[in-house]
């Protein structure tokens, strides 16, 4: 694997890792923008805009875009996270240049009003779809409850009201302020010629004008509020819990990832033995969401409603006991083994490597080789984990749940 980096004069970063043994190649545009950069008035615009980029440019219609990607045999899509919007495509090496060219053009979309009106329906359907996926819905509402007025409390898709009220000119304004070249990173992985692709990206993106596109990154420990909603169409209890933890930029993020595995991995964790092995809950998991300047642990539990109070008693017992019943060396080692093998498996595929590389660059502005990632996981000690538990007591959490009437 060979790392490559070039920064264009307008601030656009191109980072790449070349693997001549790979069967495929992947390219992604990471825009450092998402719901946390929105106001309440335009909530949902980041995600809606992500859809609109596929609607083409002044020279390409939506169907031209879809047809060209399909002609190239690309596996392509986009994702709007809370604070990064990622556009990506994996393809056979010989097609990568054409795929990259297409993405470069799409990053300067036409945002036609006719397309905007049709796509608004699709967004409203997507909102309705997630309302029928209670675990997703709980995560979004729990996040809003935990972060309250902090920018990270925004609902990713927006609300029915905010989407209905959104105008295409508001979207254009948001686009102009956030999609500046200095706020975008192009990431390329797999089997390709760096200089050739780079020249092609530079010829298409080199004229973009830089613009200030900052973000406030205040730390926030969360509201620790607890709410429950009854819904008549539900059969199970769906619980979401959010605890504050370290940000992505904090070196302790590795310890936080391991602690989440120890407490809430799908097998062999404390949640697993106390809740799932005993059939008190159907599923119980925890993961670390380390973000820009803030971070949370998110726990998701689904159970028969008759077990609701028992589930919460056990969760509170697990959280409180962490300070007394310390994490064992064996628990830490098992968590490390799981994380290390996940790193190996994920990074064997150019598409998997693309996400790692891009996220590291966007959050840290640095390249971390796989060996470096592995070493950082290995370096975490029991003392690191214990310090984290003491600094962020898990008993202090926000809770949102929904269940049957």
């Amino acid at each position, binding site marked *: 694997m060979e790392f490559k980096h070039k920064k264009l004069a307008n601030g656009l970063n191109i980072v790449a890792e070349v693997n001549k043994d790979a069967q495929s190649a992947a390219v992604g545009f990471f825009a450092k923008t998402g719901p946390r950069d929105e106001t309440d008035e335009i909530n949902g615009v980041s995600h809606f805009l992500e859809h609109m980029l596929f609607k083409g440019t002044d020279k390409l219609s939506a169907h031209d875009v879809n047809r060209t990607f399909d002609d*190239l*045999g690309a596996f392509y899509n986009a994702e709007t996270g809370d604070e990064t919007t990622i556009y990506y495509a994996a393809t056979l090496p010989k097609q990568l240049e054409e795929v990259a060219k297409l993405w470069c053009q799409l990053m300067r979309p036409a945002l036609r009003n006719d397309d905007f009106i*049709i796509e608004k329906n699709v967004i409203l*359907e997507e909102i309705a779809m997630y309302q*029928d996926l209670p675990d997703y819905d709980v995560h979004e509402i729990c996040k809003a409850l935990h972060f309250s007025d902090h920018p990270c409390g925004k609902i990713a898709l927006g609300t029915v009201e905010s989407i209905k009220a959104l105008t295409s000119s508001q979207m254009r304004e948001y686009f102009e302020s956030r999609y500046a070249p200095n706020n975008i990173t192009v990431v390329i992985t797999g089997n390709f010629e760096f200089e050739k692709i780079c020249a092609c990206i530079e010829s298409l993106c080199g004229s973009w004008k830089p613009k200030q596109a900052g973000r406030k990154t205040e730390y926030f420990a969360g509201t620790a509020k607890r709410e429950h909603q009854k819904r008549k169409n539900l059969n199970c209890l769906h619980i979401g819990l959010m605890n504050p933890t370290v940000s992505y930029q904090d070196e302790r993020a590795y310890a936080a990832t391991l602690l989440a595995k120890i407490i809430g991995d799908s097998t062999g964790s404390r949640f697993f033995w106390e809740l799932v092995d005993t059939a008190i809950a159907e599923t119980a998991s925890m993961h670390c969401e380390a973000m820009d300047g803030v971070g949370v642990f998110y726990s998701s539990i689904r159970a028969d409603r008759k077990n609701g109070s028992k589930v919460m008693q056990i969760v509170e017992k697990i959280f409180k006991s962490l300070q007394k019943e310390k994490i064992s060396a064996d628990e830490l080692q098992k968590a490390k083994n799981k994380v290390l093998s996940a790193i190996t498996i994920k990074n064997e595929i150019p598409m998997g490597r693309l996400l790692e590389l891009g996220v590291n660059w966007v959050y840290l502005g640095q390249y971390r080789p796989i060996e470096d990632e592995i070493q950082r996981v290995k370096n975490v000690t029991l003392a690191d984990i214990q310090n984290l538990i003491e600094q962020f007591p898990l008993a202090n959490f926000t809770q949102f749940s929904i269940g049957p009437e």
Partner: protein
Amino acid sequence: MPEKTDIYKLANGMTIIGVPVAGVQSAAFEFLIPTGAAMTPDGCCGAPAIIEDWIFRGAGTKTSRGLSDMLDGLGLHRGSGVESKHINLSAALQADNLPKAIELYADIILKPALKPEQFEYSRQLALQGLLGLEDDPRHKTMLLLREHFYPDPLGRNTAGKQQDLQNLTAEKTGQIFAENFDIGQTIFAVAGKYDFQKLCSLTEKLFAGEKPKKAKDINAKEQPLGYHHHPHEGSQVHIGIMTGAVTPHDNDYYNARVAVAILSGGMSSRLFTEVREKRGLCYAVGAGYHSLKEMAGIGSYAGTTPDKAQETYDVIIAEFKRLADDISESELQRAKIGLQSALVMQSESTMARAGAAATDYYMLGKVRSLEEIKQNIEKTSVKSIVDFLKNNPFEKFCSVTIGPMEIKPV
């Protein structure tokens, strides 16, 4: 690099398949064990869902906790699932740990503890899984669609039935395990970094002592395709539509696969264009090929709000019916490139390769090389696809909706 898939059979019938993947440090494996949802006696639906969990609750000399600790100690990413004919057990891990993992899985498959006190937990989890499905109407739509489309018991809901799960005992479920967990018909596929000779020696040592069982016949009963609505006070109407297709044995298999790609391959395909891009009716719409050994179908899903449900359904049916019309050469080429390119990209994942090899062997009695699949896709033409569609027109549909309102089916 030319591929070299190795296949070795033990004297008891168990099949070992090795698929090397260049340049990787991981290995992945999958066991296909003939204890699927269709194999259980009437009144015992859901037994495989219980068994899938129960076998991990202690095996050989290891307790449930001891076994779990050892699997986690290897950094294993495990998966398991119930299919129509099989329980699949899969895992991916760093290649160095592969022999130790296979030894643990031999205990899980051959010597599970199956303790009655652990049975109750497994049963409760299966019951909660079934309850959880009620809160996931999209997933439930597709399970119901297969149940109504395929002759019974081939399409049975793999999560089981509530009454049957409540009636099952440890004794009865243990008996179903003993009768069905047949090593003689088990397929074991490994992909990634491994040594095939060592793999065979180890598998021989661990599994060769197990006697094969008598293969079971299933008498599947045809059922009329129709429309089935399940009321649900959700935000959307979840629509499932399934119609017949040829199985992988059939000479027209590749014509069918390319036809489905024209209908719903990439975002320029017909369903996505007509339903989402032109009309904005849905966020999620698509169709895919699904096959059992005996029978296959093309299943479509769309989720939409009630006021758009009928139009969505009508547009999807219309697209099925006009699939043979006006297929252009460029449309065909896009479908082919999409399928071939997906094939190469999936081939980089050791987990996907192991799963595909095991399924291929079960379906066809051989493992197709990537080159063979690519060439067969390449051989299809507008004429061959149109001929196939004219000879096998989509006339009968099985439709399922879950949501606040019914639609009027064809």
